[in-house]
């Protein structure tokens, strides 16, 4: 039988404690610098404006319009994202088919693509000429549903990015749900669709809530594609992110900061809800 290891000498123990202290300090300083940057930015915004400025900004009719349009567009975009991301996430999670890696990669493109490029791509898609036919022209003249530089363009620009995040969330959600229960459901008489609806989907509701909130939050922060594809026309396609840009461009920094703070509050609210959902699912 081996002898127990000799206790560490006092000097070695002291050196180890010192090394641990240095390591933890390094972690705190490096990590803390980023946390401090975020806190300082938010504090600077808060100090720059006053409740009076905030009230004045919120009383402007065009900003009220932007708030209303933001809430409507973000909500529609989040619902559309969820509608698409749930089946696509399930497909990617459960089915191994030829070309799955390609779809998996394509779905991530809007996440890594520069936002302006995404807006430009949407603009080109709707205006490219195929023979004498153009999608935007057909939608406007035949279907009576103009998109470019109208509200649908805001929603589509938001959706094109938000949906990619929702797909990722739903894919992870379904990956974490044991597929065995769906297999057993099929032996009990379910079609694949019934197994999805009756067994997988009820287990995925927290993931769906998270995906919906993430999509809503991403839509709130979207700016580049909206600017290119929907424009930033006051009382027409102006959402909160474009309001900040418009107020800055006319030199009203106070209003820009006030709207920015409003967006920060909405972002914090979203993060709190996400955290609460995360804590609930770990219980």
């Amino acid at each position, binding site marked *: 039988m081996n002898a127990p290891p000799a206790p560490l000498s006092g000097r070695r123990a002291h050196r180890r404690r010192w090394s641990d202290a240095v390591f933890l300090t390094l972690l705190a300083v490096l990590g803390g610098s980023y946390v401090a940057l975020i806190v300082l930015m938010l504090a600077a915004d808060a100090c720059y404006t006053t409740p009076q400025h905030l009230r004045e900004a919120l009383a402007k009719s065009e900003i009220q319009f932007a708030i209303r349009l933001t809430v409507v567009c973000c909500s529609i975009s989040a619902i559309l994202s969820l509608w698409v991301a749930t089946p696509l996430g399930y497909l990617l999670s459960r089915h191994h088919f030829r070309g799955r890696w390609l779809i998996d990669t394509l779905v991530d493109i809007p996440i890594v693509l520069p936002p302006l490029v995404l807006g430009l791509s949407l603009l080109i898609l709707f205006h490219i000429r195929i023979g004498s036919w153009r999608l935007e022209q057909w939608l406007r003249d035949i279907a009576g549903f103009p998109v470019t530089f109208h509200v649908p363009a805001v929603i589509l620009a938001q959706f094109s990015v938000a949906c990619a995040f929702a797909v990722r969330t739903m894919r992870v959600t379904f990956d974490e749900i044991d597929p065995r229960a769906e297999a057993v459901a099929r032996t*009990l008489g*379910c079609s694949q669709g019934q197994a999805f609806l009756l067994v997988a989907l009820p287990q995925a509701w927290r993931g769906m809530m998270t995906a919906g909130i993430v999509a809503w939050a991403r839509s709130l922060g979207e700016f580049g594609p909206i600017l290119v594809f929907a424009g930033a026309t006051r009382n027409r396609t102006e959402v909160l992110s474009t309001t900040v840009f418009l107020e800055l461009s006319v030199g009203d920094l106070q209003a820009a900061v006030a709207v920015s703070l409003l967006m920060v509050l909405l972002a914090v609210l979203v993060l709190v809800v996400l955290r609460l959902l995360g804590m609930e699912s770990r219980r």
Partner: protein
Amino acid sequence: MIALKNLGVRVGTFQLSGISLEIAAGEYAVLMGRTGCGKTSLLEAICGLRAVAEGQVWCQGREVTTWDPADRDMGYVPQDLALFPTLTVREHLAFALRIRRVAAATIRQRIDELAQLLGLGALLDRTIHGLSGGERQRVALGRALSFHPAVLLLDEPLSALDEQTRHEMYALLKMLRSRTGVTTLHVTHHRHEAQTLADRLFVLENGHVREASLAVAS
């Protein structure tokens, strides 16, 4: 009855092949084999959850090799039970009947029957969270038996239970067999389980199945 004719199933890097066996209606057959020898894959192939490489699966005199799992009329209890986390015990027992659009009154009657048979009466409105291993096992059995399947497939149903619960389950499985008369294929690696329950014993070894006498198992 169940019949496997020259069945071949690919399992990862190895293959089960030339598997033939026949279990008559109402018989309780036990398939023994060491852990990892492909017993679960064979059960999955029988109930349609795993593709068959060659051969045929017959159930109630019909070849079902290419049938969808939903059409095979086989109750399956996997080793991990795979219960539905969002459903109550009552909903588990009603699940297969609701899919079959059985009348509500008939479903209620069947739930009462199963609850009495399996001792689940007090648990009907609980979800599966917090149920003991034995209780979960009984829920999975009830779910698999609810639609009066022709065949019951049990994958190591007693492996995760303590000694006392295991003995209670022996009695329960024997009672189920006498009350329902369902043809059963029970997979296990426990010799005692096979001796206690089996009418017939099959052994899966080196990718092949052979019938063994119950005396040999002892």
